[in-house]
């Protein structure tokens, strides 16, 4: 390496003042170093440089207080504007700090904790993969919105429970959803539920299925409906049961249609069967208790009394009744109709041989096919429990925390609602002292509207050090 000539040296120093090492702008010493050592306060331990941190309610960031540095272990570099780099070997307080004048920076603390703080935006970019491993628990608090964009798959595996709470939930999937629930699924919906399915809906239930509806149950189907069961099918209606169609077919090996009163048939209805039975005269007399209108064609086994039988006025017994005149007079023998009990005998009933009104009443009110007395939450107990109407007197329908309670109690009518506050106290969500008017505390500072005299918060300009310690009173704002 050759020595530079005098001309070259002069050239290198051109523009540099001969007193270049001096503090030309008189920045130093800083005013807070007047009348004391020029060694950085942080190096001497009279000041602890800290990052500006943000906090969140009920969230301890678990950072112990910092130990002040001891001279000469802390190497501090602080610039005129306030940027700081500290490498501190103070026993028990070893740390590395890089802090921007704004308070942003990185700190590696004595216990090994690492803090990265940004007062404004923070950007992390990884050109390839990114892996985060946390041995303990974590907490993410976003005081604004959080948007997560994943170009590929988003896989979330949780060993414990997943608890999600929030306002509205909107899910949009372009393709399918497959959900497998290992045990039970319980949903409570405080409002309404609406499902729209463009194609098919198939429910397979391998156990029982029970649907209870308090209000209207309305099913409208454009196409055919099929209800098929491999066992019994029972439908009952307490007040009225109507079936209507252009054509109704009831087919069974054993069909019973019973009623205490009513009509079966129509103008062109044919009754076909083995036996047509009317009410018998229980006294054994000749009371006419069943009436048949129209022509009879066929064979009558017995006719006790015929007042009009073409040309027969009295026919006690007729074996052929095309014209009853051929019948011979005989002894009346009342004969019960053939046993039709099996026609209306049900599993649990064994009615008499005739469907007497009492029998029908028994079927209607005592049998296994009797109309059910249906009541779904008749006193709104379930509804009130879900909506917490009984507990919270309709003031809120959600499980409230102390912050929400505080907000609700700002409304005087809520606070004076004995039911509401009573339940909150009983649930130990609200202190019994909620109604006291004097705090369990003593008075501290008191200030009026007049501006308070105070020390300055910031050092302004290159004023004398006294200015910082001087008290000042803010001007009154109009």
């Amino acid at each position, binding site marked *: 390496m050759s020595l530079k000539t005098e001309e070259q040296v002069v050239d290198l120093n051109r523009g540099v003042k001969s007193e270049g090492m001096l503090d030309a702008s008189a920045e130093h010493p800083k005013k807070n170093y007047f009348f004391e050592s020029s060694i950085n306060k942080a190096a001497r331990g009279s000041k602890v440089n800290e990052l500006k941190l943000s906090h969140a309610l009920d969230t301890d960031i678990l*950072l112990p207080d910092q130990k002040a540095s001891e001279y000469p272990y802390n190497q501090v570099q602080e610039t005129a504007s306030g940027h700081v780099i500290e490498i501190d070997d103070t026993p028990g307080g070893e740390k590395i700090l890089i802090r921007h004048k704004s308070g942003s920076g990185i700190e590696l603390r004595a216990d090994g904790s690492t803090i990265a703080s940004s007062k404004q935006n923070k950007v992390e970019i990884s050109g390839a993969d990114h892996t985060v491993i946390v041995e303990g628990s974590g907490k993410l608090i976003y005081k604004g919105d959080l948007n997560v964009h994943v170009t590929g798959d988003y896989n979330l595996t949780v060993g414990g429970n997943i608890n999600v709470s929030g306002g509205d939930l909107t899910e949009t999937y372009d393709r399918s959803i497959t959900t497998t629930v290992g045990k039970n699924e319980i949903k409570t919906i405080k409002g309404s539920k609406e499902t729209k399915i463009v194609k098919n809906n198939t429910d397979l239930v391998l156990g029982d299925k029970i649907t209870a509806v308090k209000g209207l149950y309305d099913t409208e189907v454009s196409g055919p409906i099929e209800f098929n069961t491999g066992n019994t099918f029972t439908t009952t209606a307490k007040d009225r049961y109507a079936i209507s169609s252009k054509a109704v077919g009831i087919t069974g090996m054993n069909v019973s249609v019973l009623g205490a009163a009513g009509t079966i048939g129509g103008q062109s209805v044919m009754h076909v069967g083995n036996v047509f039975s009317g009410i018998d005269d229980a006294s054994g007399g000749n009371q006419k208790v069943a009436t048949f209108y129209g022509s009879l064609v066929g064979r009558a086994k017995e006719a006790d009394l015929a007042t009009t039988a073409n040309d027969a006025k009295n026919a006690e017994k007729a074996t052929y009744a095309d014209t009853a005149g051929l019948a011979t007079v005989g002894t009346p023998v009342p004969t019960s109709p053939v046993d039709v009990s099996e026609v209306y005998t049900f599993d649990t009933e064994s009615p008499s041989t005739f469907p007497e009104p009492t029998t029908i009443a028994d079927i209607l009110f005592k049998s296994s096919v009797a109309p059910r007395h249906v009541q779904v939450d008749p006193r709104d107990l379930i509804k009130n429990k879900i909506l917490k109407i009984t507990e919270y007197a309709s003031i809120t329908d959600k499980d409230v925390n102390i912050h929400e309670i*505080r907000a609700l109690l700002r409304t005087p009518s809520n606070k004076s609602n004995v039911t509401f506050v009573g339940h909150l106290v009983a649930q130990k969500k609200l202190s019994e002292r909620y109604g006291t008017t004097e705090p369990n505390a003593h008075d501290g500072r008191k200030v009026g509207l007049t501006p308070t005299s105070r020390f300055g918060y910031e050092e302004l300009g290159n004023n004398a050090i006294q200015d910082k310690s001087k008290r000042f009173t803010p001007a009154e704002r109009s």
Partner: protein
Amino acid sequence: MIILVDPLYNPNFKTAITSGTKLTSSITVSKFLGAVGTPTTIEEQTAQGTDLNQLARNLYLHAEAIKMVNETSAFNNITLIPSEVIYPEGKIVYYHVVDKQGKVSLSASFDVAEFWKDFINFNKITLSYDEYNSDGSLFVSIGLEMPSVPTSFDVTFSKSIATEFNGNIKSSTQLIEYVP
């Protein structure tokens, strides 16, 4: 008084107010929507007929009040958290002053209330103490009421202060600090 609004964050210039609408460089509308005592959503407020632009203009003043505290070195160790917003207008917001343990600081709450009293314009500041916590401990919120802000941002501030305990007014002329 006409407030000079940062055009970047002037709600009047927004085509739509969303939870992500910025009121300052670091404060969005969602900071208020997510208030722990009155959590809500833009959709819910829309359904309830809230004028979102009016809400955003009113919250702008609150955001500026928060920003002022955040930028003051004396409050480096605390954080101001909106805890309740009184809808639909958002004129009144209650705040918690939280320390690094995540607890509400009684003394720092008084400091902030006093700071606001001297350095910002407002309609009313209320130091709202209570013993509602289940353990009966003393708790405090700061209620800050701003005027309803028209599109012109021409507002008048009626400055008053008060202290209340469990909803009972203890002083309507002073901020009083209670020390347990």
